[in-house]
């Protein structure tokens, strides 16, 4: 077997220099102190679970469609997972990089013999975190849904068009600071990222690097 080197996973979004390797992924080592930042979080583990019956998931995962919540799934590093009610009969579990196996097993455990489909989409999706007070203003350039407190409070999960692209969208404030997770089908990741960065020019948005566990 020829030595082809240890495989390093790459995000579809070009890494802002300097490029470093973390948790088996090539990521950006850039650090920004800007009040509005854009981070490529593609390395996060992303596992989709579907069921014929919405109720099954709402019950066993304890997160309804339309909401997202953090849960402790006993991962060794103590990091929580984010369970996203991404669609009717459809959930997405986000965890620190490289936790696929753990998450998939846990899901098998939780769902028991109910008919579910668990698919690891870690490599199938691009994931971006937008953080800072101006996030809503920035998104309002590209996204038609009402981001106001009444219609889109913290913990909201929805799917809509962002820059004309079907995008999964979670409001996930961090430490009282407004923040959104946006993820789309992988091949358009660079497009989504560029659109957000372009829309953020007037607001002084900057690119920040990825730091594991990143969830």
């Amino acid at each position: 077997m020829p030595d082809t080197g240890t495989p390093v996973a790459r995000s579809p979004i070009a890494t802002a220099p300097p490029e470093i390797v973390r948790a088996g992924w090539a990521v950006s080592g850039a650090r920004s102190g800007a009040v509005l930042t854009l981070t490529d979080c593609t390395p996060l583990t992303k596992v989709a679970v579907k069921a014929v019956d919405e109720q099954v998931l709402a019950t066993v995962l304890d997160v309804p469609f339309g909401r997202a919540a953090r849960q402790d799934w006993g991962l060794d590093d103590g990091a929580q997972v984010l369970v996203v009610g991404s669609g009717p009969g459809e959930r997405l579990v986000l965890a620190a990089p490289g936790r696929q196996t753990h998450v998939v097993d846990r899901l098998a455990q939780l769902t028991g013999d109910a008919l579910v489909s668990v698919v690891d989409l870690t490599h199938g999706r691009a994931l971006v975190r937008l953080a800072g007070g101006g996030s809503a203003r920035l998104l309002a350039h590209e996204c038609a849904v009402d981001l106001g407190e009444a219609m889109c409070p913290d913990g909201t999960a929805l799917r809509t068009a962002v820059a004309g692209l079907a995008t999964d969208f979670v409001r996930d404030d961090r430490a009282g600071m407004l923040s959104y997770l946006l993820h789309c089908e992988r091949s358009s990741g660079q497009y989504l990222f560029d659109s957000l960065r372009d829309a953020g020019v007037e607001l002084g948005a900057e690119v920040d690097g990825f730091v594991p566990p990143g969830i």
Partner: protein
Amino acid sequence: MILLPCPWCGPRGADEFGYVGESRVRPDPGSTTPAEWRAYLYHRRNTAGWTRETWYHRMGCRRYLTLERHTVSNQVRSPAGDVEDTR
């Protein structure tokens, strides 16, 4: 842009949806004559008024929905009576 009341996601702009067309029942292919089959394929009620139709929430929940829309005013309402649960 008209707002469509998605039973799953709430009101969303029509540009998030794909228009399928008048809700129709597919006849049993086994027992229909070609003429009947083609009436199903090609004929439309094309009502100028309230009509029941199917939309697909392409950018949202990815569910096929049945809605009622007034084709002159483009007002939209959730369908009267029972609609098959597309869950």
